[in-house]
């Protein structure tokens, strides 16, 4: 993918910066934090905010209505509801803090040690974490209460133990992800002690995820505590929101509105914690939803302009047009509504039965052009100009059904990386049969016979076994053969091969290229071969288009391009790839992905 595309997809939040700065920079995280802070302050300064004693019961005030002497009314014992709300926050929040502190105090050190040193400690700790995680929390907490009595803070500390596996797992995986990094090795080699490596480099990585997880856990603790108090197994001597709900429950037929206030307080507290967590997660991971549509009138960021060898200079004979791309432009929406243009006016012409190489370095727009023809641009990308004619039908303005009918049936696609392009959960056979049944309307048995023939055709020695195998059970070379079989299964007229040999071993590359060549001549397909390897071009292609910065800078027959490259970029590519060697040694040419 081109650099500009990566830029287009990056969000401002991914910029490096302190955790605090990210929080302050994100409106939602900041807002949630302020709301939570207000609740904390209101609980701490409760005596200043209300003159009432939350525990003082007055018979004359039982279930007093709101907006009288008691702003929010009084409960079934004649206690002031507002005062109980404010004071109730204290025990609830303190309980959550205790649970969180215990979870962090257990989870962080064990996670760091398990991830950094691994070995036996890791096995034992991971096992224990799994064990604790599959315990039904509330039942364990109830058992604990039956042992130590309704001492809420001690109970919350035990609940912290139950929460600790979450912290442990997060810390451990964070450490595992960085401990193999080179800079950690560099620090170790230069004599930095393990402890300072851990505190300086490793803790920094897990800090943000821990804050996110912590805010969620605090919310869970608040809800659990309220639940226990609602059940009546809590500490009845201190005021709490859960107790208020219990009282409201007992009077649900008399004064149902009393449910509202404690529920609201719990909801706002936990909600602000959850919002803070999700907003921070989005800011850190950059998962905020990018505007899907480009803003009309937004600025277009186009690649630097370059000199192009005019196509007219190099016109060649035409055997009947199969694919005709004119002035294709592809853009990606940026978060600010502007557009990054990655393909800027590409012309491409492929005749029936012609093998057309599209060459260029990574990021030159060749894969984007291929995806545009298939109508399969990644999310955020779209064709913003030009036309794509396949056998006379304009595709960019066609209905989805028209494109669906062409894809797979008349245009085949061979991807670059074999393993990631097969669905890991279905057998190879199923993946071959499914499109044939749809496009060729074959019966299950007929499709299977055809699939086995195809597997045999692409050089797989035991088609039956491969048919029943899952992707993880075959080698990369075999997987690529299966993908080729799938691409040609419905006898397409055009085959789009996107660097079909790049991910393979050198010996397998040669075999796969041979296979492609023989399939092409046998079926006289048009082929668009996307590659950065001139060796492959020399081996297979009739004509070549050279791409740079989203444009075709030069095109011509293979002989023209190899013998007399006109554009300096083509000359440079040829020199760097072949290094003066003969044109027919490309199959063993060293891969030179830039």
């Amino acid at each position, binding site marked *: 993918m081109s650099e500009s595309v990566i830029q287009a997809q990056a969000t401002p939040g991914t910029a490096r910066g302190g955790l605090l700065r990210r929080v302050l920079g994100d409106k939602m995280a900041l807002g949630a934090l302020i709301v939570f802070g207000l609740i904390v302050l209101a609980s701490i300064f409760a005596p200043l905010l209300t003159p009432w004693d939350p525990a003082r019961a007055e018979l004359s005030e039982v279930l007093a209505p709101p907006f009288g002497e008691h702003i929010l009314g009084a409960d079934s014992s004649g206690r002031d509801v507002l005062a109980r709300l404010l004071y109730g926050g204290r025990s609830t929040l303190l309980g959550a803090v205790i649970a969180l502190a215990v979870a962090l105090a257990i989870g962080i050190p064990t996670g760091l040690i398990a991830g950094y040193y691994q070995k036996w400690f890791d096995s034992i700790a991971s096992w224990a974490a799994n064990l604790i995680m599959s315990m039904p929390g*509330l039942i364990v907490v*109830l058992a604990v209460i039956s042992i130590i009595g309704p001492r809420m803070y001690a109970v919350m500390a035990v609940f912290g133990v139950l929460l600790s596996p979450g912290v442990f797992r997060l810390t451990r995986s964070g450490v595992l992800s960085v401990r193999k990094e080179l800079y950690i090795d560099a620090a170790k080699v230069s004599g930095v002690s393990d402890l300072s490596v851990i505190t300086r480099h490793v803790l920094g990585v897990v800090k943000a995820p821990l804050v996110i997880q912590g805010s969620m856990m605090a919310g869970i603790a608040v809800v659990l505590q309220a639940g226990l108090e609602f059940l009546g197994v809590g500490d009845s001597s201190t005021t709490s929101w859960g107790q208020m709900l219990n009282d409201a429950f007992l009077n649900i037929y008399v004064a149902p509105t009393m449910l509202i206030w404690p529920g609201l307080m719990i909801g706002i507290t936990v909600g602000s914690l959850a919002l803070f967590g999700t907003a921070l997660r989005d800011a850190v991971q950059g998962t905020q939803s990018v505007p899907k549509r480009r803003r009309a009138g937004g600025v277009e960021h186009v690649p630097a302009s370059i000199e192009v060898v005019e196509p007219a200079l190099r016109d060649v004979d035409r055997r009947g047009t199969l694919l005709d791309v004119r002035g294709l432009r592809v853009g990606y929406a940026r978060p600010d509504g502007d557009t990054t243009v990655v393909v800027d006016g590409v012309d491409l012409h492929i005749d029936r039965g012609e093998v057309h190489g599209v060459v260029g370095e990574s990021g030159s727009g060749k894969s984007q052009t291929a995806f545009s023809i298939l109508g399969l641009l990644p999310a955020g990308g779209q064709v913003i100009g030009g036309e794509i004619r396949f056998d006379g039908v304009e595709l960019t303005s066609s209905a989805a059904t028209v494109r669906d009918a062409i894809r797979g049936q008349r245009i085949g696609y061979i991807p670059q990386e074999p393993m990631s392009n097969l669905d890991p959960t279905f057998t190879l056979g199923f993946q071959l049969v499914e499109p044939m049944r749809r496009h060729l309307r074959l019966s299950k048995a007929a499709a299977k016979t055809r699939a086995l023939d195809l597997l045999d055709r692409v050089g797989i020695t035991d088609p039956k076994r491969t048919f029943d195998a899952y992707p*993880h059970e075959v080698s990369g070379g075999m997987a690529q053969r299966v993908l080729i079989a*799938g691409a040609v299964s419905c006898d397409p007229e055009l085959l789009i091969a996107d660097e079909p040999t790049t991910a393979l071993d050198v010996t397998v590359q040669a075999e796969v290229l041979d296979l492609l060549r023989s399939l092409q001549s046998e079926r006289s397909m048009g082929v668009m071969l996307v590659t950065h390897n001139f060796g492959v071009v020399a081996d297979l292609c009739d004509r070549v288009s050279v791409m740079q910065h989203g444009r075709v800078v030069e095109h011509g027959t293979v002989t023209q391009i190899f013998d007399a490259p006109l554009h300096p970029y083509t000359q440079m590519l040829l020199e760097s790839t072949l290094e003066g060697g003969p044109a027919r040694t490309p199959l063993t040419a060293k891969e030179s992905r830039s």
Partner: protein
Amino acid sequence: MISFLLRRLASGVVLVFAVATITFLLMSLSGGSPARNILGEGATEQQVAAKAAELGLDLPLWERYWNWLSGAVTGDFGSSWFTNEPVMTSLANKFPVTLSIVTVAILVTAILATVLGITAAVKRGWIDRFVQVFAVIGFALPNFWVALVLVTIFAVNLRLLPATGFTPIATDPSKWALGLVLPVAALVIGTIASTAQQVRGATIDILERDFVRTLRARGIAKSSLLFRHVLRNAATPALTVLSLQFVGLLGGAIIIEKVFALPGIGSLAVAATTQGDLPQILGLVVVMVVLVVIVNLLIDLATGWLNPKARVS
């Protein structure tokens, strides 16, 4: 796959054993005199000693533990210290109620969360924003509070649904279902919210995979792409979330049962907790953990069936 399941089964047995042992030891070592608690303050020393001997509390700890354990493996958890009812009998009476609620709740969660999550991931737009907001709300509102509000609205004010009580499914299936509507609704709001969020994330992740593009390039039907390929790949993380939700639902049901006065294990658990009824609590803990182990095994089986790679590891 079989060796994997056997290993999980073994680790489940160890889990049950470990939790039971720890609970037993902690409860036995916690001090106080259970016999005195049972008989009340008025009892004489002789009466207390006699009660302790009757319950076997005068035996050394390891012997008490051995007695309990050897009974437990045969399904005999002893009798409640306070009601003298065999623990197994009371559990057998109460558990079907709790299990009804939790099972229906997990099924409803699985279906609705899948539909919501996938729709949000595919359509984006307003439904995506709804799922995001719903996730926060569902997380923030305690399910028993939701239950109280639902009771107030639908049972007390509108009188549409029963506020309390439970009808066994064998007696009257439609009454059984009607009685479950509110408790299940209260329970699933939270679980649907968080599960839908997870399904959404997993689906978005799968949709960006290379093989999805290749499948689309083969021109397979959109419904097959989504409901066969994407769903099956997204199912593994979703099932993991569901197994965690199940553990949470067991706890949630205990609290919910109080609101709807359902005769499940909730009241049993609360009574045993406040009284310190050791055999009752031990029985509850063991049965709960066994249930969790079984559900996790089922989830492992389902994961293995859906994801061939998981069968190997």
